[in-house]
């Protein structure tokens, strides 16, 4: 009985969208080494849609799988749709997470949200795009 579902293991071992985006439209960083997990999300926005999403993650298997899953779920969505990716939805898509790892799905959704915030604040300031 592995602690992780097959889906989690798949996303952990073959994470989608790993990397950075050059000149991203938004960056979201959450976590710190004290709590054990750190995620950085990079987004590219076009016509209010997440054209590209990438991430870098320092953390446990769940943290990596969550990052991958969030990136996959977010890609192609409008910003409003992307905001609706809740930790529970992420965990469900991953076919469950161990109780003590649930906070990772929080982090994933937060990081994405922060990247969107970052994009919006830059847009408001700079009027770019």
């Amino acid at each position, binding site marked *: 009985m592995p602690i992780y579902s097959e889906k989690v293991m798949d996303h952990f071992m073959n994470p989608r969208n790993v990397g950075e985006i050059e000149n991203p439209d938004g960056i979201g960083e959450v976590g*710190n*080494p004290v*709590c054990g*997990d*750190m995620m950085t999300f990079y987004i590219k926005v076009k016509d209010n849609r997440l054209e590209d999403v990438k*991430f*870098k*993650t320092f953390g*446990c298997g769940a943290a990596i799988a969550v990052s991958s899953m969030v990136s996959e779920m977010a890609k192609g969505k409008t910003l409003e749709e992307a905001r609706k990716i809740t930790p529970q939805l992420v965990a469900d898509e991953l076919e469950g997470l161990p109780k*003590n790892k649930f906070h990772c799905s929080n982090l994933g959704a937060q990081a994405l949200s922060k990247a969107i915030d970052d994009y919006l604040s830059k847009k408001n300031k700079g009027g770019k795009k």
Partner: protein
Amino acid sequence: MRQVYLDNAATTPLLPEVREAMLPYLGELFGNPSCLHSWGDAAREAVERAREQVAQLIGAEAEEIIFTGSGTESNNFAIKGLALAQQAKGKHVVVSAVEHFSVLYSARTLEKWGFELTLVPVDKYGVVDPDEVRRNLRKDTILVSVMHANAEVGTIEPIEEIARITRENGILFHTDAVATAGTIPVKVKELGVDTLSLAGNQFYGPKGVGALWVRKGVRIIPLLDGGVQEGGRRAGTENVPAIVGLGKAAELARMDMPARIKHLTHLRDRLLTELPRKIERVVVTGHPQNRLPGNASFCVEFIEGESMLMWLNSQGVAVTSGSACTSRALKASHVLLAMGLPHALAQGSILFTLGLDNTDEDIDYVLEVLPPIVDRLRQMSPLYAKFTKAGKGGK
């Protein structure tokens, strides 16, 4: 795929001889040692033989050995039982900052019961300074507990020296020898302690059994009340097959110890020297020389331990990260933090604990599969990205 078990600190397999010794007691010889008929007689004889075997392993008298259900129980029994027996004398207890949770949280429970607790710090290798212990003793100190060796970083503590200090001050000294008894020489007289815990599943004996050695004349309050088993100090029907297995494992450990140490030390030293050559920015944790023969522990920078563990597992290699196996807390190991490692580095802990079955080929295999795993994880690590951007090696 090659299967390589390198998590012997978590638990060891049973030696075939140990299993053989146990089987009759899972069959015909199922009696309860407290009973006065032949079934009881056979069980009692087996338990008393095991008591002799365990006593011999640590140079003690058989009647000083109390069988328990685990290393954890032995430590709870010692810490709580000695403190309660002494509370009229004082209520101050001193334990090291790197103790196993079964000692640490027993001491925390004592705090709830009105005792005071002092944690003694360790140096960067995880070594307790005996002078630090001395400085922390008070008029009302009744108990000191420092483990014989830390299973997580392998460091062996200067027990004899600490024992000299506690003895001078008339204070009881418990040592948790779960990581050492059956692995390296442990002689209670030389160590000079008053009580000592050990556990079967640390040296190819069964789970579900431990022992507490209590120096003759030392008073201890039982943790388990009930019948008069174990001289009235640990109630409950004895786990006869497991006790028999522990006895046999003790006998084998005593006889084979030098050869085992030689074998394990060789493999350990290969890991300790070759892994840092294969992977950049890896640090060895624990004392460089004065460490358990089977313990090779590291922290790998920029990545997290569990993800390494999971990847290694997919390659057939079983290891532990930090104290993952007993805490599953998501925080960094309290041992590594006490040694002064920064959180991020402590998160990258990886622990190889070798066993009798391991071979040079196992080490070769680990040295082959781990570097690409580390690479892969670093490629997705934001910390590694920052490091490389800041100018690799420029640190």
